[in-house]
């Protein structure tokens, strides 16, 4: 293919892949940045979002749209007792304890799903208007990819408004910057934590559903793709919305470009990029300087 269509392909497919990565990872970035908890169970929430959607659609025969909303809400609700009774216990402790606990949660979720569905992949049946592809003139783009790109941009803008402009967002940023001072001005930090954890879980669920055409639902999903999400957060810097966005776009485009130009190296390009960024800027592209818990 000629150079122009090659570049357009890389841009289009790269951004589509990036939006999926972003939507799943942004929740992890926020909860990591806010609560300083290494949450390895994040992939499990994305997975729960997908599986609950499938279960609700099959068992209760509701339309796709209703099932998606129900799954996002249900995942957020499930995350609340997990945060209150389990994860809160390791807030002050070292990262290894946090990682071990949250990986344990991920394993439990994997085993639970495996016992219910078996080791096969499960597919979310998209409604008719999301199937097929759209003809863009120079090539066709699957409809669900286009929807994901739009959704990713909408989520970015919505989150930005929420974090920068809303009262909750102000308190969130205050607690991130200085938890002790936030407590001193009567900001209820523990309620803040629960809400932002649930928000992160809800975003993960949305990302899992949106990305299901790319990352299909299977019991090992929670840990299999965790590396991708962690890479996005590491490259972007934790606690920053635009950091995740930027990292996802960069990683997505580099990964897609190598797939077109040098496919044998495409799996290494993703992680090589991460290595280079972290070597130059260990806190991530937009991470706060010297932010160590």
């Amino acid at each position, binding site marked *: 293919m000629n150079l122009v269509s090659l570049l357009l392909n890389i841009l289009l497919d790269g951004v589509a892949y990036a939006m999926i990565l972003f939507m799943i990872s942004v929740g992890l970035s926020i909860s990591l940045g806010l609560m300083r908890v290494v949450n390895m169970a994040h992939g499990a929430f994305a997975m729960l979002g997908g599986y609950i959607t499938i279960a609700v659609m099959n068992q209760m025969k509701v339309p796709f749209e209703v099932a998606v909303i129900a799954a996002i809400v249900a995942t957020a609700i499930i995350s609340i007792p997990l945060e209150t009774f389990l994860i809160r216990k390791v807030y002050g402790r070292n990262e290894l304890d946090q990682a071990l606990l949250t990986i344990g949660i991920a394993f439990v979720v994997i085993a639970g799903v495996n016992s219910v569905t078996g080791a096969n992949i499960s597919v979310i049946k998209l409604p008719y208007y999301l199937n097929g*592809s759209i003809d863009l003139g120079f090539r066709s783009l699957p409809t669900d990819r286009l929807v994901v790109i739009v959704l990713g941009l909408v989520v970015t803008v919505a989150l930005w408004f929420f974090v920068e402009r809303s009262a909750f967002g102000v308190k969130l940023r205050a607690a991130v910057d200085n938890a002790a001072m936030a407590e001193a001005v009567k900001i209820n930090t523990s309620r803040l934590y629960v809400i932002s954890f649930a928000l992160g879980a809800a975003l993960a669920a949305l990302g899992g559903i949106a990305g299901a055409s790319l990352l299909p639902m299977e019991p090992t999903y929670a840990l299999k793709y965790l590396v991708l999400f962690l890479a996005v957060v590491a490259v972007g810097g934790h606690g920053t919305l635009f950091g995740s966005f930027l990292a996802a776009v960069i990683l997505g485009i580099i990964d897609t470009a190598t797939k077109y130009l040098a496919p044998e190296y495409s*799996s290494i390009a993703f992680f090589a990029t991460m290595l280079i960024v972290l070597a130059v800027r260990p806190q991530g592209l937009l991470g706060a300087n010297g932010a160590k818990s």
Partner: protein
Amino acid sequence: MKTLSRLMLAVAAAAGSAIASPASAEAVKVGIIAPFSGPSAIFGQYWRAAMDAYRAINGDTAGGQPIDYVYRDLPGPNPAAAKALAQELIIKEHVSYLGGIVYTPNALAIAPLAEEARVPTVIFNAAACSVLQQSKYLVRVSYTLPQVSGPIAKYALDQKLMNIVTMVADFGPGIDADNAFTAQFTAGGGTIADHERIPLSTTDFTPFAQSAKAKSPQAIYAFMPGGPSLFGLIKAYQNNGLAQAGIRFLGSDMDERDLVALGDSAVGLESGSFYSASHDSDVNRAFVSKLPPDIHANPASVEGYDGLHVIYKMIEASKGRSDPDVAINAAKGLAWESPRGPVSISPATRDIVQNVYIREVMKVATGVINRELRTFPAQPDNCTKK
């Protein structure tokens, strides 16, 4: 440490053959090494269910000999663990036969043990050409890539698909599939426009599908491991307009498990394989009927069925005694009607000789199936001596 276990193996082998115990009611022990946990747990689950199905049809005893099964979990390619498990089964559990094994590295690690302890081993899956040469006590009931790719290439040539792009997973079996297909295809006058090597960890297949489309081939030949990778590739094929552009899909399998996930969207996809669940025979219908509802009849489960058949025949021939040479000789040349069709074990290579079918996905009342279009009978394993 290594010398000690080798000494123990030699003693066990000597003791086993010296004490030719009379055919007694003491059960013959069979050790099965397979993944029962982890991402490949499908194999262990399906093999176990298929073996139960075989026993439901053929009885629990082989030639009157009762059998004890010992299962060991080997979740992935791990030669050290494979060797340790085989050692444990041979020395501690005193198995007379080994079965199972998904991954070639594991098979290669177990082969020297089978040779030294003289334990007939039926390989249910590990499909690389080099495996069976490692020990004269190995028999295989799965397939090889040259065996299956050859007929697909011939079918492509017959269908006048002269320009093809291959899209294979970038690992041993994928590259073998690419080489086997290419050799046969180009020998018949076809041209390969591009060899696409897709990393195993790929989740987004769109770039590869677009690159293939840009070369305007008449078809693509695809080999990906079953599960999310094959599913992703097929989705990319469908969503990027390759079918509309007149590019046909020739797969190196279309696992019935993936068909369930793909549903109606898979209709029309062609593939070549040694087993289709819809194969029209009484033996196959009996096999499928005995499988529990969550276990699909597919190439993996039929491997378990046929593997146990070979073990049964070896036990019958050696009358329950531990007589490895009699057992292996009984396996060589063994012929039977498998759910796949008529099969036999080649005396020269100890590999399975079987029909290879070209299938097309078709919609029927119960869902989608692989419908057999054409049969290439009695294909040998086609592993050329390197």
